[in-house]
């Protein structure tokens, strides 16, 4: 499976700190998306970055994409306890008719 891989698998920080999660993938992509999953819930779309973009911001989220290294990072600034969740990257490949390939996720714990 051409799966993205998140790093680290788990991350524990204090409220107010920044959290950085990384994603690596294997082949050329159309876009890369980040999703959040709270415990016992479905995934929620956070942000999408296209293959011709290098950086994108949304509120406290900053996503970068380095296609030469086939990697992306998600930065959450000034984290809050409510940010505690699992974060997944998902990549869309050419000709996949809308299909996404999800990584295994990073479990983020933000302690108050």
């Amino acid at each position, binding site marked *: 499976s051409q799966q993205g891989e998140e790093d680290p698998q788990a991350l524990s920080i204090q409220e107010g700190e920044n959290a950085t999660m990384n994603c690596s993938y294997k082949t050329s992509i159309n876009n890369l998306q980040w999703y959040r999953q709270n415990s016992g819930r*479905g*995934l*929620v779309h956070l942000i999408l970055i296209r293959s011709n973009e290098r950086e994108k911001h949304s509120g406290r989220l900053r996503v970068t994409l380095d296609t030469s290294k086939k990697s992306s990072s998600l930065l959450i600034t000034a984290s809050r306890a409510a940010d505690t969740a699992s974060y*997944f990257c998902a990549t869309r490949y050419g000709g996949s008719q*809308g299909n996404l390939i999800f990584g295994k996720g990073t479990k983020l714990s933000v302690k108050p």
Partner: protein
Amino acid sequence: NAGVTQTPKFRVLKTGQSMTLLCAQDMNHEYMYWYRQDPGMGLRLIHYSVGEGTTAKGEVPDGYNVSRLKKQNFLLGLESAAPSQTSVYFCASSGQGSNQPQHFGDGTRLSIL
């Protein structure tokens, strides 16, 4: 705003039993998907549909069947449940186009004894 609704939320089956998981979306999306999520495995695509009356296989289709008779509904069937199908099943939908995000339901937790 309902979004994507999955029923049931929980179910316990015995090996060999059959059941159908229901997914409904109210966003007029063309594309719908069924995934399974297992510990340490992330989400894996079972089947998907790009429009009413069409279905296609994903990464792990064996043991499952699907139907999309109406645009808003996508059904996932297990004809003869096996313990290996114990998982959390998620339905998602999206608009057409490669830059459309997917919208997920809250999942069905299925245990096969």
